[in-house]
């Protein structure tokens, strides 16, 4: 096997030229790639091709609010930075703050977590609920697409071999009620068994927006707009009667593989909890 080349560019432009010429694998925080390629103590991890290390590129760091109220997060912004930022939507902060433990959150990046496209990755789940987009740049141009479209399946994305994820843009969203749960084996340092975000807006007793997204429940994060539509437009007094239809429709988004009974049952209980809170006139804010 030819020796793997490693590039350590100082600017984004250099990194994009390297992507164009060598199609080198982008390494952001390293928390997935360094472990996947690990060869044990004292040995350089193995990579499937050349590598471009983008960890410290200043152009890929930071969180800013754009003129239209949306929030742009640089691809190499860490989970800890996202969890600490008041600019970022609370559901995304929840997911970032529950990833691994402190040290991991100081290394793992939002771009890496999306680019790795693991179904158990924590960041895509609330981002897909919020209709967030990834900004992809190459030496020749830029394009944007929904995170939901970018992640095709487990470990498969729409990234071209000359592109880098440069940022994630979360559109301005406000809901009257939000809910987040991560189910793992421990409180800290756990890989998700199941995650769920839900958000709703209730206005004058009517559900005008309802969304949910399930993570770690299939080959990619799942939303089911058809199921969501069952609840949208309903009065909160009607939620009890249409809840079962919604929950049955949501069953379909949970993959039939890997303990579907457990995942469906737990997801049903979480969604029921949130919908019951709405039906009971829960005050605006977070449903615990």
């Amino acid at each position, binding site marked *: 096997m030819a020796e793997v080349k490693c590039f350590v560019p100082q600017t984004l432009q250099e990194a994009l030229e390297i992507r164009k010429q060598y199609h080198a694998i982008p390494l952001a925080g390293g928390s997935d790639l*360094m472990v996947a390629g690990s060869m044990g103590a004292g040995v350089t991890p193995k990579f499937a091709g050349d590598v471009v290390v983008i960890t410290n590129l200043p152009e890929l760091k930071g969180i800013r609010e754009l003129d239209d109220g949306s929030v742009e997060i640089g691809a190499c912004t860490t989970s800890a930075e996202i969890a600490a930022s008041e600019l970022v939507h609370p559901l995304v902060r929840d997911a970032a703050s529950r990833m691994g433990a*402190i040290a991991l959150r100081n*290394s793992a990046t939002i771009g890496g977590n999306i680019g790795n496209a693991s179904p158990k990755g924590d960041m895509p789940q609330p981002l897909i609920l919020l209709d967030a987009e990834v900004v992809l740049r190459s030496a020749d141009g830029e394009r944007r697409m929904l995170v939901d479209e970018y992640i095709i399946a487990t470990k498969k994305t729409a990234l071209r071999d000359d592109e880098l994820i440069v940022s994630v843009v979360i559109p301005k969203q406000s809901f009257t009620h939000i809910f987040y749960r991560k189910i793992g084996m421990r409180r800290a340092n756990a890989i998700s068994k199941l995650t769920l975000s839900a958000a709703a807006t209730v206005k004058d007793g009517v559900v005008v927006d309802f969304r949910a997204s399930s993570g770690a429940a299939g080959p990619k994060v799942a939303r089911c707009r058809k199921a969501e539509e069952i609840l949208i437009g309903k009065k909160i007094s009607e939620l009890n009667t249409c809840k079962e239809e919604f929950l049955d429709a949501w069953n379909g988004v949970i993959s039939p593989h890997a303990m579907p009974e457990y995942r469906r049952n737990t997801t049903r209980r979480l969604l029921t909890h949130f919908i019951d809170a709405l039906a009971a006139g829960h005050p605006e804010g977070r449903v615990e």
Partner: protein
Amino acid sequence: MFSEIRFTLNGEQKIYTGDPLRRLIDVLRDDYGLTGSKEGCGEGECGACSIIKDGKLVTSCIIPVAGVNGCELLTIEGIRDTEKGKCIIDAYAEGGAVQCGFCIPGMVMATYVLLNNNPDPSEEEIRVGISGNICRCTGYDLIVECIALAAKKGAALWQK
């Protein structure tokens, strides 16, 4: 095909010219002789290899040395003779936090970051602060008590 990697290690400027994809822990231990950082799991889960990168706790087993280009690094060797380092180490010794000792360098680094950011942590905040550090002797309670002791005895150091 790569430039030099420059970083500050325990206050000294270093220029590294080897393989940029080597794990930081290997470079620290094998090239610079800093064997205080231990390798436990090699997957960033156990915290034994914790060091401080630009003021933040990171696990050095999952970072390639290229990932610290331009950064300031502190290892256990860089803090052990400082006032704050001695405060933590003395408290650990006084309260009997150390059993086999393998996790302790990582625990000390996590304690250092915790007390720097939060000079008077609650028990819960201490437990969260070391939640990425696994002690296989399972001696967590004594470690938690010793961190509280370090906060109390070193109050003047941490309150800044």
